[in-house]
């Protein structure tokens, strides 16, 4: 009886020892191996787009430090909880690298994506070979970022096996962040800046001065002439056009004739005309100035040729234009039949932007 109890005791002891050994073996698999692995150097994950849920490029880089042990696979695992290899990994919400493509690889190459990984991990596999010292990079296209903002982690571990099983050789973690984008907004309103005056300094409408031209007393032997100015700029894509509106010189029912075609100034002839260029006969006016793209309109751009038709376009630009300054020259002649009187006209220049 005593002997029997002893034997049972021995058997139970053996079972206990066996259990302890098995437990120790399991612990050995879990704990000490993590301490044996060396750290991969210069680890990073360069992300092309850090928005949550963005489909983007991840370029993962690191340096192998253990060149003695062949590497047949690399496990890249993304976790939301921490970067510590061999601890439980919580997959980031919405993250998906399983459907990505290995678009490029440098340094240690020859890897292919092994099938069968979960959405938050990818295994790179190749025939085992000892790595060399130096940076290696692996670019993955079509990776979907986590749907949550903030920090998430990449765990990198290398194996001799081709399927990321067994004892890992080296390991390392990387922290990444998702972030909101920044949107800068501004407005450029349509603008047309136009002004007229007898004189305008440079391209400053604030300096436009005087709005009356006095041609003096007409003579059959001398052409009366004077000029005014106008400046214009616009961001209208279709540019602008400037037209003139008004009548010829008038005194009651009497008028000074306005040529309807470009005509040279001639004394002793009833004439009232304008143009937007420089003239030698009479000496009046200037060519268009400024960096804009505007120009005098046909019929009003000929030297020493004048005409006037109510409503005519006198200048224009086909595109948006920087500043231009137009100088409008006025000439008046009378013949001997011109009825006496005080002749005047009010001319309006209308600039229309083509937005």
């Amino acid at each position, binding site marked *: 009886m005593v002997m029997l109890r002893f034997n049972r005791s021995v058997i139970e002891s053996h079972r206990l020892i066996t259990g302890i050994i098995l437990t120790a073996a399991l612990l050995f698999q879990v704990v000490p191996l993590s301490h044996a692995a060396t750290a991969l150097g210069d680890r*990073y994950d360069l992300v092309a787009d850090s928005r949550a849920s963005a489909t983007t490029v991840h370029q993962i880089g690191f340096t192998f430090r253990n060149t003695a042990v062949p590497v047949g696979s690399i496990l890249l695992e993304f976790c939301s909880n921490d970067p*510590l290899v061999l601890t439980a990994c919580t997959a980031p919400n919405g993250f998906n690298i399983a459907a990505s493509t290995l678009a490029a690889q440098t340094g240690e190459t020859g890897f292919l994506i092994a099938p069968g990984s979960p959405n938050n991990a990818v295994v790179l596999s190749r025939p085992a070979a000892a790595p060399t010292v130096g940076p290696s990079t692996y670019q993955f296209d079509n990776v979907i970022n986590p749907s949550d903002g903030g920090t998430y982690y990449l765990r990198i571990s290398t194996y001799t096996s081709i399927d990321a099983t067994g004892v890992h050789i080296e390991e390392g*973690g990387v922290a990444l*962040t998702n972030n*909101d*984008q*920044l949107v800068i907004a501004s*407005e450029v*309103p349509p603008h047309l800046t136009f002004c007229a005056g007898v004189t305008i300094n440079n391209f400053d409408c604030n300096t436009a001065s005087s709005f009356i031209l006095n041609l003096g007393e007409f003579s059959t032997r001398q052409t009366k002439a004077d000029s005014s100015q106008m400046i214009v700029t616009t961001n209208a894509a279709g540019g602008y056009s400037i037209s003139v509106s008004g009548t010829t010189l008038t005194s009651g029912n009497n008028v000074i004739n306005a040529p309807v075609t470009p005509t040279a100034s001639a004394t002793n002839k009833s004439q009232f005309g304008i143009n937007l260029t420089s003239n030698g006969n009479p000496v009046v006016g200037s060519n268009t100035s400024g960096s804009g793209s505007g120009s005098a309109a046909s019929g009003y751009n000929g030297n020493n040729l004048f005409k006037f038709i109510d409503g005519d376009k006198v200048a224009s630009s086909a595109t948006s234009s920087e500043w231009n300054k137009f100088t409008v020259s006025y000439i008046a002649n009378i013949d001997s039949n011109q009825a006496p009187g005080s002749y005047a006209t009010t001319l309006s220049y209308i600039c229309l932007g083509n937005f």
Partner: protein
Amino acid sequence: MNFIKRLQRPTSLAAAALLLVAAAAPLFVPNQAFAYGLPTERQVKISSSTAGATGVSYEVSFKAATTSVLQGLVIEICDNSPIIGDTCTTPAGFSWGAASNPQPSFNGTAQTGWTGAVSAGKFTLTNAAGATSVAAGQLVSFTITTATNPSTSNTTFYGRMLSFATSAAATGYTATTPGSSIDAGGTALSTADQITIQAKVQERLTFCIYTSAASASCTGNTTTNPVVLGDANGVLSSTSPSISKTAKYNITTNASLGATIRAKGSTLTSGSFTIDPAGAGSATGAQYAAGSEQFGLCTYRETGAGAGTSTGLAPTTQYDGENGGTSTATSCSGSTAGQGAGFSNNGFYAFDTTTANSNFTSTYGVPIATKTAGDFSTGILTFLGGVSNTTEPGIYTSTLTFIATGVY
């Protein structure tokens, strides 16, 4: 009957004599246990308690109980008992190493002329010519630096320390025949398992973009998009610079090689129309020029109230809003938010779209700042906008992505 009585009397006397002799015997039998003084403050200080550790220093010290000239000192390590006179078993694995000549110290004064000898767990120091007297209460010490600890961990072992007036007495010492020591006493020691403390510091990177007030973290910050660049209505001017300084970022990391902040996106765009990047998209950027299309940015470290205090944030050259860390008359950090003459402070603003593989439109964008490992730093993003007279009308937007990448 008388005979019997006669016989009984001597017997009684003999018995009485025997009792007397027996009672007095202890007075005449030498007893080693009481032949020496018991030193105080006895200790053997060891430099390592690790089982089997080698090169361990054993510093033996005690305060003398008896005033005497000393010519011999003994320390013996035992596995079983510290009692003087008991048998001594040397602990498994223990060794004093090669014999050496550590010189003792008497009352703080270094001595000379002492010679060491090793025998199993016993280390004997003698100086036959020694004439230095140690008074009661004075400290005696010596250190042996070549010991190997017992090989069993978490196990008590003992030291017996003795002093002798003659070197011969010290040399003649054995555990069970300790001889006539001046002082003698025991002490206990122990080997112990080493405790390994393991902790992990995980890779860390926290980065956020925001438009709320400057803060020293990424908690609670908010972003109001879009960030308006222009006058009160967001209208850009062809005659004055428009400046925005509401966008900020905070970053902290423990990356050993630091982190790089990259920016990526397009210039202000309205349909097919764009506002030219500052400096025509070159790497050098440009100062504000009235009447020119310009969109660019600079960045600098915020040092105002509430901002992150770490100084490890360094803008890259072309986006450096402080020209290397110092605000000057032409620093964009000195710009004024809003729209008006001089608001740009003649600083340089850039929006590089031309440098190969490192510009706002390349895959990973362009580095605008770096951050060394450390606590939160706060950066200000300052944007410049300007238009020409021919800039096409429209609502212009620029969507920018800022990416922080740590290298661990």
